[in-house]
């Protein structure tokens, strides 16, 4: 037996610090909950945010080498940006627990511990190019998320959790199969070594790569809700509470995008044309089908679910294009989308009513918002701003992301893709505008302002205020943000 000796310095432990902080925080919270009963939800929220901010500090403050911990960790530019987005999004979504009405899940310390574990999972996904660690991160975060959805404790929430879990298990299986195939072909689970090995054997055998890619597309496609593995999205969004649904539309996807970026860019640049074609088809189908389905939705939350699928399609287009500009566009788009989406889902959270007064089936049917401007002008206007922003109306936030994305497509000579993106934005306007039409141009169904905003509280209003500010004045910080993003993305070679 050889003795294994490892130099502690070579492990580069500070790179693990961000994940360690949250893990310890979560474990500590569970321990405290064992001893102290009835912890207040404000305390739990604030302590969790504190840990998230500490984590954020550790992420930004890290300045060691990019490889760490047996080369399993890869702390490069996109890992950094993605972590910042994940942590900021988590820190601003979490205070949505402080709503006017009390919900069971937000009173339990477990929820917050799970929330922190979930973030650790996402972080593991983005700071690694090791297929096994990515898998662990994926599963940690997913399992925590399924549980948190179920904790909402409504029949629909259980349905959503189980649906998400079953489909997620299938996706996990796909992922494992794909990783297995790549390992079988190359003898490695590190993406960069897989790339080298595949290049060395000139991307043969094709069948193996095809199978690996298809399984990977299935697995990540599930996480990113790409057509055809998107069917869970509307039901899960509908069943989850609005804060979680909004969170799911943003954070798991950014983690998925980073993994997809690491994996698929290697495959797209392999020069095997059909790989690009598969991805192209997935992108176009995702954008278009989701958009068309969103047109006929009767529930705002389901509409937002389909629209988020379509937004994810735009992002996959950025990965398909694969230039520095398009990858930067992805992060820019997603940062701006995050705030607008946060605003939209917070508004849904605010107008949540205990009973489904407007429709038997749906909680937020369009009719609910009829004539809202006559009852609550400020609420209606703010919601309208979010809708127009999501539709890509200038000069609101998402427009600048879209602008940069289309321009990235054009600059890489993907003219048809650019036109398809543009046409899809035109289709998307209809269903976003539908809500604005209901709010501003129709007569109220129930002229009782007290039915709305039953869940509003000061923290929620503050969050909406921040989201509105960022959405409306996005133009002010798009330029500096773009510079920072470009710097980090190009530094990590994407």
């Amino acid at each position, binding site marked *: 037996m050889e003795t294994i000796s490892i130099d502690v310095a070579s492990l580069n432990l500070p790179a693990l610090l961000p994940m360690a902080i949250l893990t310890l925080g979560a474990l500590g919270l569970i321990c405290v909950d064992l001893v102290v009963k009835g912890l207040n939800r404000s305390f739990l929220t604030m302590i969790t945010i504190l840990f998230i901010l500490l984590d954020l500090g550790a992420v930004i403050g890290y300045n060691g080498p990019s490889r760490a911990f047996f080369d399993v960790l890869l702390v490069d530019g996109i890992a950094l940006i993605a972590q910042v987005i994940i942590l900021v999004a988590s820190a601003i979504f979490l205070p949505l627990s402080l709503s006017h009405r009390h919900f069971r899940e937000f009173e339990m310390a477990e929820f917050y511990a799970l929330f922190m574990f979930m973030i650790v999972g996402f972080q593991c996904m983005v700071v690694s190019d090791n297929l096994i660690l990515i898998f662990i991160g994926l599963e940690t975060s997913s399992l925590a998320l399924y549980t948190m959805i179920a904790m909402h404790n409504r029949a629909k929430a259980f349905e959503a959790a189980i649906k998400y879990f079953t489909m997620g298990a299938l996706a996990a299986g796909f992922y494992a199969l794909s990783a297995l195939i790549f390992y079988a072909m190359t003898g490695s689970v590190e993406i960069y070594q897989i790339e080298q090995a595949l290049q060395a054997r000139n991307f043969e055998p094709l069948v193996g790569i095809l199978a690996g890619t298809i399984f990977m597309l299935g697995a990540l496609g599930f996480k990113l809700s790409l057509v055809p593995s998107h069917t869970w999205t509307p039901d899960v969004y509908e069943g989850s509470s609005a804060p979680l649904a909004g969170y799911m539309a943003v954070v798991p996807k950014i983690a998925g995008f980073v993994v997809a970026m690491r994996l698929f860019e290697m495959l797209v640049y392999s020069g095997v044309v059909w790989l690009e074609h598969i991805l192209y088809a997935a992108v176009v189908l995702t954008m278009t089908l989701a958009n068309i389905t969103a047109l006929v939705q009767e529930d705002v939350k389901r509409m937002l679910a389909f629209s988020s699928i379509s937004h994810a399609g735009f992002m996959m287009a950025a990965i398909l294009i694969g230039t520095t500009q398009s990858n930067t566009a992805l992060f820019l788009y997603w940062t701006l989308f995050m705030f607008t989406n946060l605003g939209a889902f917070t508004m849904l959270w605010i107008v949540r009513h205990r009973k489904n007064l407007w429709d038997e089936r749906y909680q937020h049917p369009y009719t609910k918002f009829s004539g809202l401007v006559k009852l609550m002008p400020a609420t209606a206007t703010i919601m309208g701003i979010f809708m127009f922003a999501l539709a890509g109306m200038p000069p609101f936030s998402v427009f600048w992301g879209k602008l940069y994305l289309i321009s990235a497509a054009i600059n890489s000579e993907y003219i048809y893709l650019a036109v398809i993106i543009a046409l899809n934005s*035109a289709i998307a306007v209809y269903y976003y505008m539908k809500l604005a039409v209901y709010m501003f*141009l129709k007569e109220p169904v129930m002229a009782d302002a007290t039915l709305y905003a039953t869940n509003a509280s000061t923290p929620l209003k503050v969050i909406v205020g921040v989201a509105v500010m960022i959405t409306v004045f996005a133009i002010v910080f798009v330029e500096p943000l773009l510079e920072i993003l470009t710097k980090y993305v190009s530094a990590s070679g994407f």
Partner: protein
Amino acid sequence: MTMVGVFLILDVIWFYAFWELSLVPMLYIIGAWGGEKRMYAAVKFFLYTFAGSVLMLVGILYMGFLYYEATGIWSFALPDWYLLQVPFRAQLWLFGAFFLGFAIKVPMFPFHTWLPYAHGQAPTIGSVILAAVLLKMGSYGFVRFSLPLFPDATVYFLIPVAIICIIMVIYAAMIAYAQEDMKQVIAYSSISHMGIVILGTFAMNAEGITGSIFLMLSHGIVSGALFMLVGVIYDRRHTKMIRDFGGLAQVMPNFATVYGIMLMASVGLPLTVGFVGEFLSLVGFYRISWILTLLAGTGIILGAVYMLVLYKKSFFGQVVHEENRSLKDLNAKELSALIPLVLLVAILGIYPKPLLSTIDMSVQKMLVLMDQKAIEPATKELIMKANSIGGTH
């Protein structure tokens, strides 16, 4: 008003931002204060124009990319773009992308179907803004972007565009004749007139373009005033149907007079503001093709037909409906809004020179630029031809 931004700003991205933003207030004006089918009209208007302009956005970004490829610098400033010679094939595509955005706004046949709904349902103020400002955003776009940026494509597509214009002129005039609603008559007459505006723009010479710009202005005054007048009568009677009127001249003499003047200006009676622009546009296009100009000229005759019939049916003859007997004439507030417009119609109709010479100066510069930028010999030849014969400028 967000529409102001479209005409002031040369940075093209901002142009696009304001272009889109101007839809939101219009959506609300039509949708909230309009007639019965206001929501359908507002949504149709919004979707049509939005769909057109997103493709224009792709065009704008592609243009920026071409500029970058040629010079190595990113720029979305229009003065920079003017200096760029765009390859011919790219011009064709870009012209198409911009054309869609502008043509839907103008609105050109066959993208005009949103306009009658929007006008029919919009409140008076909405119609005035639509006719006087919003439609001109499209024709402005042609003069500002399509012509100087893509001279070769403009010449390449000249005849098809001209044929579309003539269809607009004649077809819209015929529909206008068949309308029973006063407002729809004016709405369709707008389409008909915009046909002549675009025709003048594509004349590729100083007369035509200057005339078309002047016509944009005069049509803004005249159709705006006509919509205001319909608003006046709608306020009193709550109907816009021609058959509900008749003999109004006896009851409301001042109203009839102002209406008559505006109508004549709309038809293009010499010495009114409408004549100058229409005449110059047609004279300009005569150099390109006399037969097409002749066809477009019938638009003026048809215009006289439907407008005079409208006037005859609602103002002359005996008062048939008892409700109309007690109608009050224009009050001081209405007069104070309309008299300045009447004065403008007369003054600019008799002495349009100050305005024309100002417009002419910039148009001359633009034509020189187009001539310099042209790649295809056919383009240079056509610009030469359009500007030489009997040119006095």
